[in-house]
């Protein structure tokens, strides 16, 4: 009896010890943003349904993540089973064979529900290479009280001239209220995200069809001149150091009349916990020039081809980007907190429309973004606020430094554009364009 009991207990102990060894661990690299952090806390339904899969999260700052994941994927290090990447990287990495195609995502996945402009940016040769977790475009967030005080009414999609006029009228420097806050900090994902899309709206592309840089053209001169002029006249002091977060802080503390930036900012400025102007914010579509200002970004989950757990990884990606996950977030944290900008069904949901006053301009902005035709001229690249070539990160930052210097008054607009042209010509020649 005692021998048998001991044997049974031993077997039980062995089983208990062996259990974790059977479990497959998925290492997921992600950025630190609200939606991603929320997902980390809400994975219980997935791990309960898949006890053989354990999740290990690696959260990193965006630029560190980009460098770390690129190194690992390019060298086939196999450290990550799932990576969080932007729609800028997806087509480039898919072309290199670094990502697995996301086919057979399960019967419930409903890939056709993904917003067409988002799906298009994540596909290569008709195959989806990353599943969108959240998507964003750009829009205008403005102070309704200041707009009223200025005697103006914001159109659904204003022109750039209306924006400049409103910015001047809303500015009251003695009360530290500035009519407009725009990104000025140098960086391909900072000031160049805004200026690339603003330039495109003015009809200014980065390159012509022969990959020749276009910074010395009239359209770029007009766009940059207007940007520098309005920021000097109606922008906050030290604007050349302001990125997304600095402008967010300014807007939340009531110092900006208008802010044109990513749609994701709407949920921050309308949150009374952090924003002193939460009840006085209005939304409008990004301005229109020769073309409407377009912007399209998505944080996505992709599976590196070096993973040793492709099936488990696909299972998790399908769950995290599913409609069921959206409903889970809505049930636990409210509809206003669900990851936006990826699925048509979300914007058809009356509960979401009611909880998120910014839902319609967000959807309209995303739907109007055309990755292949961002500006009036024909271009050889895709991208609205970025250019879909591997060299853009370095090139965008180098050009951004010139434009930031023009905003800071360290260079004239002409000098900045001339320098940008020289830098772009040199870098493109070095990279062997046209290819």
């Amino acid at each position, binding site marked *: 009896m005692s021998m048998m009991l001991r044997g049974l207990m031993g077997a039980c102990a062995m089983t208990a010890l062996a259990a974790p060894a059977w479990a497959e661990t998925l290492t997921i690299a992600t950025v630190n*943003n609200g939606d991603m952090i929320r997902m980390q806390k809400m994975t219980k339904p997935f791990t309960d349904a898949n006890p053989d899969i354990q999740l*290990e999260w690696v959260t990193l*700052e965006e630029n560190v993540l980009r460098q770390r994941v690129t190194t690992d994927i390019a060298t086939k*290090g196999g450290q990550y089973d799932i990576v969080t990447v932007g729609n800028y990287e997806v087509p480039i990495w898919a072309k290199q064979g670094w990502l697995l195609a996301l086919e057979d995502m399960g019967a419930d996945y409903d890939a056709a529900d993904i917003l067409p402009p988002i799906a298009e940016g994540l596909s290569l040769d008709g195959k989806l290479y990353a599943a969108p977790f959240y998507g964003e475009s750009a829009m205008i967030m403005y102070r309704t009280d200041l707009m009223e005080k200025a005697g103006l009414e914001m159109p659904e999609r204003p022109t750039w001239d209306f924006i400049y006029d409103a910015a001047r009228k809303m500015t009251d420097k003695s009360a530290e209220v500035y009519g407009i806050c725009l990104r000025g900090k140098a960086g391909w994902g900072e000031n160049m995200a805004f200026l690339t899309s603003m330039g495109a709206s003015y009809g200014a592309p980065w390159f012509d069809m022969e990959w020749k840089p276009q910074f010395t053209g009239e359209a770029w001169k007009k766009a940059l001149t207007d940007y520098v002029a309005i920021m000097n006249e109606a922008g906050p002091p030290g604007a050349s150091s302001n990125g997304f977060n600095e402008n967010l802080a300014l807007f939340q*503390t009531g110092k900006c009349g208008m802010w044109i930036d990513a749609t994701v900012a709407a949920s921050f400025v309308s949150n009374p916990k952090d924003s002193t102007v939460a009840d006085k914010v209005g939304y409008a579509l990004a301005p229109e020039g020769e073309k409407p200002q377009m912007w399209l970004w998505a944080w996505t989950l992709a599976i590196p081809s070096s993973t040793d757990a492709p099936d488990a990884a696909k299972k998790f990606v399908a769950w995290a980007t599913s409609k069921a996950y959206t409903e889970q977030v809505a049930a636990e944290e409210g509809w206003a907190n669900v990851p936006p900008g990826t699925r048509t069904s979300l914007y058809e949901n009356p509960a979401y429309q009611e909880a998120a006053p910014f839902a319609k301009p967000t959807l309209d902005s995303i739907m109007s973004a055309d990755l292949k035709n961002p500006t009036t001229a024909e271009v050889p690249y895709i991208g609205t606020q970025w250019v879909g070539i591997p060299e853009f990160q370095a090139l965008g930052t180098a050009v951004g430094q010139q434009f930031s210097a023009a905003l800071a008054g360290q260079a004239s607009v002409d000098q900045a554009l001339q320098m940008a042209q020289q830098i772009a010509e040199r870098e493109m020649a070095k990279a062997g364009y046209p290819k």
Partner: protein
Amino acid sequence: MARKISDTRRWGFTILAWGVALLIFFPILWTILTSFKSEADAIASPPKFLFFDWTTQNYAEVQSRSPYFRHFMNSVIISVGSTLLGLLIAIPAAWSMAFQPAKRTKDLLMWMLSTKMMPAAGVLIPMYLLFRSWGLLDTRMGITVVLMLINLPIITWMLYTYFREIPSEILEAARMDGASLKNEILHVLTPMAVPGIASTLLLNVILAWNEAFWTLNLTTSKAAPLTTFIASYSSPEGLFYAKLSAASTMAIAPILILGWFSQKQLVRGLTFGAVK
């Protein structure tokens, strides 16, 4: 005979010293204060120094989101391990260079130091490929060896400087009394150089604790130290300064406390041999 200093000068120097000390310490103080603010207070303009609603919410959130103690233990193991391993190699090396110099010893020392000037990013890919081939990615052993190697020139240089201050006659006397090489280093040289070795140890533990390039690139989760813990709290979209400050305070607290308690030893070691 000590020079007499007037009271005015003494007060002047005291105030200047406190001013400089406060200036150096201010970023750390500001980080600690910010960690007790709400995100809205953290970005308030004009900045709020002491009069804000103090909260420990950021610490609670950081605790609930990240396995702090796993990162902490990894930092301890990696920094102490790499320093001890480095001392094991550097003590005999520094002994040889200080007491048995060859024709090219000076050149060798300069070359060792020059390797510190090489940009780390330049060797990232080869190192990554080696680590991948040897299965060392995200292992404590791998990152310990790397940190030992990158700090080895500093450890050797520091020990070499300390050893040079010890009269070689003492070692010769030990040799004449029949001490073997091992005994000479272990029982004669090492006890005399304890302040120097202690300060080398402390300084290198601090350097290894703060190292962020290799630890961020060669570890992922299992061997990730506190540098990766801090890196996870910076956000491109959304306010994060208060939470990042809480994470930074938690990451620097252990090394700050260690530095505080060992400052006498550290200063004594660093100024060892400075006055003849």
